[in-house]
């Protein structure tokens, strides 16, 4: 199976779905790519992220729409297009910019189906970068999935591998509800096996990336890779099960509970700030539904409750580390 980068996997998903369904359009800043839209260079770079590379060339300006720098226009246009029958994929570049278009997301797109009595669906995707580790500082590095997960009506996707990124993007485009698709910027160049053919990964179904009997680690996004490395390192010593929920909303509570009932020990790793994040949610779930199965207190590993630092050495300290995860697992087994 060919190895592809996270970036290429998403690009392939967009390309295949655009080929498959003419109602799929892309909208965002500089997604056509090229050097400021210079004739002949269009689509050559695929925007700042390179995720849409080549799509302008393949599908033209009607389906790959470059916009001015106005996030509220991008998301507002996408929501309207979705209501009227298209399947737009809007790009916010850095998800941190949602602040200027959150009304369009949470009070409009997320509410249409509900408030119009089911007479309207909003099959749109909002893509963007999240996460720290790239030296992008406080306004461009946040892990915002808890905020989106809090809103009923939104589905929130957080892939951890190229394989999942492609399958989840295809599902996101085919889904009839607004989907927030969060791409961790540090993962763009990680490579993994990605099948050529289109495939959809259903939402709300966790992936068990490592099977084990002693400790369950529930990790989100990039942290899944950290947890996998810890599980591999401890093999033969502590048997670690790693769960990647893949979507934070809907959350696969069934598999989380099954796993915790099996192992009796829980570590949750969430790069997001600790208050009201997914680690809080998972531990709350286990505490209310499976407390009696726990052999030890659950451990929550998150970033500190501060903005993401710009200085690389501080940023490294900010992000939950493999060492912290390993220590937590060992601690639970004492």
């Amino acid at each position, binding site marked *: 199976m060919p190895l592809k980068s996270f970036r290429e996997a998403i690009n392939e998903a967009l390309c295949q779905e655009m080929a498959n369904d003419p109602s799929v359009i892309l909208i965002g800043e500089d997604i056509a790519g090229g050097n400021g839209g210079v004739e002949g260079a269009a689509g050559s770079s695929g925007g700042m992220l390179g995720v849409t590379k080549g799509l302008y060339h393949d599908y033209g300006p009607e389906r790959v729409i470059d916009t001015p720098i106005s996030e509220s226009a991008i998301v507002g246009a996408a929501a309207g297009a979705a209501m009227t029958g298209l399947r737009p994929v809007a790009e916010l570049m850095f998800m941190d910019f949602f602040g200027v278009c959150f009304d369009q997301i949470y009070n409009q797109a997320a509410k249409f189906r509900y408030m119009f009595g089911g007479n309207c669906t909003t099959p749109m995707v909002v893509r963007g970068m999240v996460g720290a580790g790239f030296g992008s500082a406080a306004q461009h590095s946040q892990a915002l999935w808890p905020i989106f997960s809090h809103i009923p009506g939104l589905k929130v996707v957080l892939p951890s591998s190229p394989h999942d990124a492609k399958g989840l993007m295809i599902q996101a485009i085919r889904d009839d509800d607004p989907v927030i698709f969060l791409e961790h910027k540090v993962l763009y160049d990680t490579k993994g096996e990605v099948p050529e053919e289109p495939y959809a990964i*259903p939402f*709300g*179904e966790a992936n*068990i990336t490592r*099977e084990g009997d002693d400790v369950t680690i529930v990790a989100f996004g990039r942290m899944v890779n950290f947890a996998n490395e810890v599980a591999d390192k401890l093999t033969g010593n502590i048997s670690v099960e790693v769960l990647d929920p893949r979507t934070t909303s*809907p959350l*696969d509570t*069934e*598999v989380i509970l*099954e*796993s915790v*009932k*099996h192992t*009796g020990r829980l570590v949750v790793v969430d790069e997001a700030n600790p208050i009201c994040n997914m680690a809080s949610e998972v531990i709350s779930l286990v505490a209310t*539904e499976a*407390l*009696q*199965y726990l*052999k030890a207190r659950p451990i929550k590993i998150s970033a500190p409750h501060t903005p993401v630092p710009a200085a690389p050495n501080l940023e490294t300290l900010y992000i939950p580390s493999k060492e912290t995860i390993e220590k937590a697992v060992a601690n639970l087994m004492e």
Partner: protein
Amino acid sequence: MSDIKLLEVPKWGLSMQEGTVNAWLIAEGDSFAAGDEICEIETSKIANVVEAPFDGTLRKILAQPGETLPVGAPIAVSAEGDTDEVAISTFLNELAGGQGANEAPNEVLVAGAAAAPTSAAATLEPISSASAVTSGGTEIPSALTSGADDSAIKATLHGRKFAQQHGVNLNQVTATGRGGRVTRTDVENAILAAGGSLGTQGMDDASVAATPLARRLAQQQGVNLGDCNNSGSAGKVTKADVLALSQASANANAEVIPMTAMRRTIAQRLQAAKQEMPHFRVVVDVELDNLLALRKKINGINSGAKLSVNDFVIKACASALSKVPEVNVQFDEGSQSILRFTDADISVAVAMPDGLITPIVKQANRKGLSEISNDMRHLATKAKAKTLQPDEFQGGTFTISNLGMFGVKQFDAIVNPPQCAILAVGAGEERPVIKGGELSKATVMTLSLSSDHRVIDGSVAASFMQELKNFLEHPALMIA
């Protein structure tokens, strides 16, 4: 058609893993009916007889006395009396061929069943035809184990693992999980719906949901949490569940006697007295020779009453209570006050077949010995006939409990609230005594007064005992 069936090591309780055949109670060739006792098997906990699960004839014993086998292992072959020997040996050969010596018995049944069509002589019908017991005591109905390849059925990892572990085919399970996945809960529900049972993971009950208290108690009592009910919230085993099981097993060899109303009253009142009342005791020895001589003289002359030593004790107590009225009291907890009485209403404990009752000799301080004696005889008769009226046993200002007739030397009694003192009377017996440096003998009785220190102090109790001793040793003082 003749049936060849296996008799197996039964499973008595979820924690039973293996059994040792102690003895066969029937011989090869004997026929038996369902319910007949056929052999004795001993487990780590009990020895018990195996009852035949069906009618048949014992054709071949497979497990000799002394052999220890896992639960479900075959111990004998049963068949109709006219079944061909060849068919039985064919059956046994297939059994041996289908398994290694100690392989799980379930596989024996499966292997035997698969081979059945080729064996024209016998139809194989495993005893547990409807189900097989897998690890941890989970019983899987056979309806769930068959079906097409289930690898394409959507299931959660733990759902699939659990199903594989117990041989459940996922085609037979209704999926309720997200996206049509079969969850572990679905598999468990399917097993229960098909009439199977879910065991525990062997002896280890660490995975059984239980309250911390229940878990600690279960460890102390050696109870497996998997054997308990789970009546608590979220299906947890509670303390009551553990107690129910440990009492059920403890009660197995005991006759269960419900508490009578009298028993419950005694239990409740004396429990409260012992818990709430600060008891202390004062003990004296009393020489009875003068009293016994007087009694002999009176009983020899007076035909109206036969006085007992106890009658003298009642009279002496009444006299002593008149001298030390601080003991002739009741404590009213509600108003935090002491009720001191002029008359001594003396309760006397009377043993009954199912408890005791304390009829009252009222105003004993005003009565002569004959009257006390007649009262007492009358009350005791009524008590034994259970015809006492409430006012004849409720109230009283002081109690006497006499175990002297049993030869008891000395004992301590529990005060019966709201009274504040009780006298425990031992047997009068000849004892050596030293008087003025000379060893002599006397009939001596030991009296022990239990008092409620909230209202009676040590010196008061001691004064009372001093007076009582004086009256008993010099009974003439009682008429003074």
